């Protein structure tokens, strides 16, 4: 009888323990199998490798393969998921775009609520994963923000200093141009343009940009139009180089900076590892473009990570991997390997440039203009409108006012 009681108790304890979220504290040899993870860009390869390495130390019986689908990621992923051939885990932009919500609506991603311990996540990060109070992805605690990278050697040789106000920044652009150097490496691509426009917007009109948080500033407001006109003026003044319209992707833009052709580049913090790989000897730093009153801030949000395919054949191993990603250890491996700005007080940024960016931002975080657009647009064409129009504005096909009229027409 005693024996039966013990057995019953043991079984109950085992059931309770198995229902608890996966912990990353100890080696687990019970979970086995093989899983595949898809990422969307090579700049995330090194951090992913670091996370997989840490995971395999905890789960030695799980094989993890990864694939970087750098070309047409969303299209390839959607096709794979629709055909039932999708990876076990895959990256999406979370709730920042309509992609993951679409998958959730169609039952294509697994509900991770209760299966993964999200206790380390910040409120902002969790927003990216949460739909109807359930979590469908594991965010990364990196601040995906934009900053102005600069070549310290070129600055030192010419006696230039990091600007403290917006007008100093503009004066610096003119000085660099006069010295025969391209001030900013820039690509003629919608995302590259957005990633320079948003920080310029926050520096050009901080009040307007702050109003984007609660949508008291409209997407077609003066801060947006004025800052975009600034970009047009800079392009016309040759600050992006005379032939920048021929640079069509961000890789070439980064090469323009890492080869020393340009003195500066406004890009994402996720570009840090690519810059390091392109030119390990490059002596560079970064700063947030300052406003006229000397304050500065960073435009950005926490980054999203992986969701689990609802049709995975290795649910246990996939959940274990998601659980490891959500752990402090997994997050630290990711944040420090990518060289990103940490979005959590519990995790330190390892890269000196990421630390510079954190300090330069002064703790001010601005909401992304594009995020406001996709959140408050009354049609599903918001992304098409901004991405097509920004290219047309920069090539002179339409004016800034034309674009703002198009934007106003689709907003609530």
């Amino acid at each position: 009888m005693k024996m039966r009681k013990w057995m019953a108790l043991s079984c109950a304890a085992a059931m309770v323990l198995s229902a608890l979220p996966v912990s990353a504290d100890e080696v687990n040899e019970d979970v086995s199998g093989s899983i595949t993870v898809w990422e969307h860009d090579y700049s995330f390869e090194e951090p992913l490798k670091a996370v997989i390495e840490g995971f395999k130390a905890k789960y030695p019986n799980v094989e993890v393969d990864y694939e970087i689908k750098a070309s047409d990621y969303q299209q390839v992923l959607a096709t794979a998921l629709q055909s039932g051939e999708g990876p076990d885990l895959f990256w999406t932009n979370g709730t920042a775009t309509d992609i993951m919500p679409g998958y959730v609506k169609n039952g294509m991603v697994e509900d991770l609520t209760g299966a993964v311990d999200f206790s380390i996540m910040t409120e902002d990060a969790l927003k990216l994963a949460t739909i109807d109070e359930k979590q469908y992805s594991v965010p990364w605690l990196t601040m995906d923000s934009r900053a102005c990278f600069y070549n310290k050697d070129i600055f030192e040789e010419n006696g230039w200093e990091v600007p403290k106000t917006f007008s100093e920044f503009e004066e610096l652009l003119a000085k660099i141009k006069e010295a025969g150097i391209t001030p900013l490496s820039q690509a003629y691509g919608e995302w590259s343009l957005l990633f320079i426009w948003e920080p310029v917007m926050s520096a050009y009109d901080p009040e307007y940009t702050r109003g984007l948080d609660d949508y008291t500033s409209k997407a077609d407001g003066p801060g947006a139009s004025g800052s975009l006109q600034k970009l047009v003026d800079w392009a016309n003044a040759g600050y992006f180089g005379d032939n920048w319209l021929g640079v069509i992707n961000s890789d070439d833009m980064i090469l323009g900076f890492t080869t020393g052709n340009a003195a500066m580049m406004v890009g994402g913090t996720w570009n840090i590892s690519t810059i390091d790989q392109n030119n390990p000897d490059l002596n560079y730093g970064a700063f947030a473009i300052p406003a006229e009153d000397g304050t500065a801030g960073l435009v950005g949000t926490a980054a999203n990570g992986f969701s689990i395919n609802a049709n995975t054949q290795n649910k246990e191993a996939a959940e274990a991997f998601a659980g490891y990603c959500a752990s402090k250890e997994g997050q630290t491996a990711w944040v420090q390997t990518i060289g990103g700005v940490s979005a959590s007080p519990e995790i330190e940024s390892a890269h000196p440039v990421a630390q510079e960016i954190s300090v330069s931002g002064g703790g001010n975080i601005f909401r992304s203009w594009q995020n406001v657009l996709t959140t408050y647009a009354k049609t599903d064409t918001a992304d098409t409108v901004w991405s097509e129009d920004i290219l047309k504005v920069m090539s002179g096909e339409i004016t800034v006012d034309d674009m703002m009229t198009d934007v106003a027409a689709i907003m609530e």
Partner: protein
Amino acid sequence: MKKNKNYLFFITPGFVIYTIFAVIPIIYVVYLAFTNYTGMGKADFVGFENFVRIFHDDRFTPAFFNALKNNLKYLLCVWFIITPFQYFLAYFFFIKIPAYKYLKFMVFLPYVISSTVIGFFATLLFNPNIGLMNTILKSLGMRQNAWFGNPSIAFKLLVLVIMWQGAGSGIMIFYANFMDIPQEIMEACKVDGCTEWQRFTRILLPLSLPSCASIIMMSTIWALGVFDLPYILGGVNGGVGGSLDFASMVFYRYTFGSGLDAKTNLGFGSAISVIMFLFMLIVTFLQNKVLSKFEYEN
């Protein structure tokens, strides 16, 4: 008399495979063109809404017709520049100009390289930041160029790159056609004292017209569906001012979305495919009418 129906055994496998992999998908695409299918979930019937949007949408319609215009421009280049270029190169190889073996090798070489690699080579040459062309111009103290970012020359450059890459296929067919002309005719022509010009205009040209028809036909179909090189060289949005935008790229953008925020819209994409299918059908039908005059009885 009993009719022999053995031919059915030979036809059936091909017929079944063709029906499954070509006919049924076409019928399915026509069906999808009347729905709002996104690739996930249900496909609701929306009538002619997708077709109306193709012709009356403020944003899509100008982009689509600009792309079609580029397709037609490219088609004219195929007819009047690329095919004659291939023809004359094949002729020069046939008459064995000096170093023709080396030249033949050099012309055929890019043909066996994939479009992606060709695009990469073109980038190495024409990229404004790291490209060889601007480096040379800079060292000579000359004005540099945006190349594929310059709408006034982007299309011409694209045609040049395509000629460099794809000339080999047409040359191969023309050259084989020239070699296939009976030696007796060529010798009789020599004995009769024909000049090179007479030999070309009276013998080679008329006897190679069927291969011209085949090449023009294949190039036309390719020209109306061109995608890879302009996509690599001008980006998914079709370059500055839509100078490198083609119908397949517009289809791609609006069917699968672009960049990180891709939203699939297979219903609308299917409607574009149906329109493109009809357009290609009309062009090839008219072209066939003209090219049928090139054929001769053996």
